[in-house]
């Protein structure tokens, strides 16, 4: 997809990301989602309202952003922190290829650790390949792609990417996104719900944006974040002597 350079970076990134102890954390939020779904299915097998509540609200405002945050800040941020990124940047690889390769790895991992569990939980909760299950799966796939662009960008711009990422997820999306109408327009969580609802047509999802707005805004935000990330990486500087 990106030639030999992109494939090489992706392969090393994948090994580095999955080799860290932090990788165990990737599986925790989706595991909780599936366990909760199983328990609720046993307790309320025929109640139609909880699947969209749990898989939509909990899945899209907690599991998806937090897992994407852990993965998105791992693929590049860890190397920036420990300085091993210099080995990669002291080569003629275009910085856009570095960002694109890291982003693809983060997105695919998030899709595996969030979108697939969402689909599985949706199948369990609704008893089959319903519109809700498929909608949540597609929404989670799109959310994985959008969140990771932002988190990869944050890990280029700041060494406190996790802190800023948490602030965005908890304060902007969690608080303001639900209280202030305009904040939804800059909320990846709402873009994901909007895309999910375009298929699911379920009012319990509380989707605040139309599919068109969600896809359009999501594409713009994703592209902008990746461009900013590539530019930021091109200006990556090493600290000089301790003075």
């Amino acid at each position, binding site marked *: 997809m990106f030639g*030999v350079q992109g494939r090489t970076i992706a392969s*090393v990134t994948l090994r580095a990301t999955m080799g860290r102890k932090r990788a165990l954390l990737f599986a925790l939020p989706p595991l909780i989602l599936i366990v909760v779904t199983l328990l609720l299915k046993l307790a309320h097998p025929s109640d139609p309202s909880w699947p969209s509540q749990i898989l939509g609200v909990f899945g899209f405002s907690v599991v998806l952003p937090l897992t994407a945050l852990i993965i998105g800040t791992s693929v590049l941020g860890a190397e920036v922190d420990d300085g091993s990124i210099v080995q990669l*940047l002291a*080569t003629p690889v275009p910085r856009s290829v570095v960002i694109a390769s890291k982003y693809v790895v983060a997105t695919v991992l998030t899709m595996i650790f969030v979108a697939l569990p969402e689909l599985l939980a949706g199948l369990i909760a609704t008893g089959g390949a319903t519109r809700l299950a498929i909608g949540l799966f597609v929404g989670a796939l799109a959310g994985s792609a959008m969140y990771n662009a932002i988190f990869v960008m944050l890990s280029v711009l700041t060494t406190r990417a996790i802190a800023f990422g948490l602030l965005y997820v908890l304060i902007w999306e969690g608080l303001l996104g639900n209280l202030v109408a305009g904040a939804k327009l800059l909320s990846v969580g709402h873009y994901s719900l909007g895309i999910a609802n375009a298929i699911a047509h379920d009012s319990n999802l509380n989707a605040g944006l139309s599919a068109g707005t969600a896809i359009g805004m999501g594409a713009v935000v994703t592209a902008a974040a990746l461009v900013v990330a590539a530019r930021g990486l091109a200006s990556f*500087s090493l600290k*000089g002597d301790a*003075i």
Partner: protein
Amino acid sequence: MTAIELRNVSRWYGNVVAVNDITMTIGPGVTGLLGPNGAGKSTLLHMIAGFLAPSRGELTVGGAASWHNPEIYRTIGLVPERDSVYAFLTGEQFVRTAARLHKLPDPDAAARRAIAIVEMAGAQDRKISTYSKGMRQRIRVAGALVHDPQVLLLDEPFNGMDPRQRLHMMDLLHGLGERGRTILFSSHILEEVERLSGTIQVIVAGRLAASGDFRAIRRLMTSRPHVFLVRTSDDRKLGATLIGRPAVNGVEVTDGGLTVRAADYGTFTREIAALTRDQGIALRELLPEDESLESVFAYLVET
């Protein structure tokens, strides 16, 4: 001939000037960038390597600017000071990864060649996490050499190495320099630079303090005045004798003993033993006061 050229290069962080108006040209062969810790060596090396923008001035490697120019890494190989690599890779995988990132036509052959140069073939299939510090340094050099660059930059390459590993690395760099590569390495240890390079650039407090042939600069360093603190059974009597000697520039009697400014280190230290014996004075203490590297560098700045 690929040269590193700096013209009036400065770099500052806020109000702090890290590198101050440096102009130099570095050609093929081994050049040592010498200076005390915090002198600005790393800042300078990072700017040459394209990992820091000069605040002012012009900096080129082989005629091209290195900042914001990834293509420059076809010419440059960099071994940064920070020893962080993908430790989960084997040595061979690490070097082959570097070869692929350089899009070399035959990455396997390039990796084999670079590993052979640093003599790491025997350990190339072990994970880097199992390597000693010296082995990690060598495999990092192999990674930096895999595309056969004209210029090799190394930031404090001998830090943490044992004497045998140092010698090996010195031989390696020396050989590369003799084959026409431009090798620039930084160090705060005089002896390392002395063994390895004929040409040095001395950086003190962000400025270029001395530049050129090592032996000339070394002579300047050893022939500088030295200050000694001397304690004896009769300080005044010795002081009176010392002031008549050509090797002594000045004597001051203090509460703690004699402060002697010697013009020549070797002559003074040989003479004082004989003088005290002849005068029947017991020599209790002889302390050189300014043997720190910083004082040597400070002296160079003054001259």
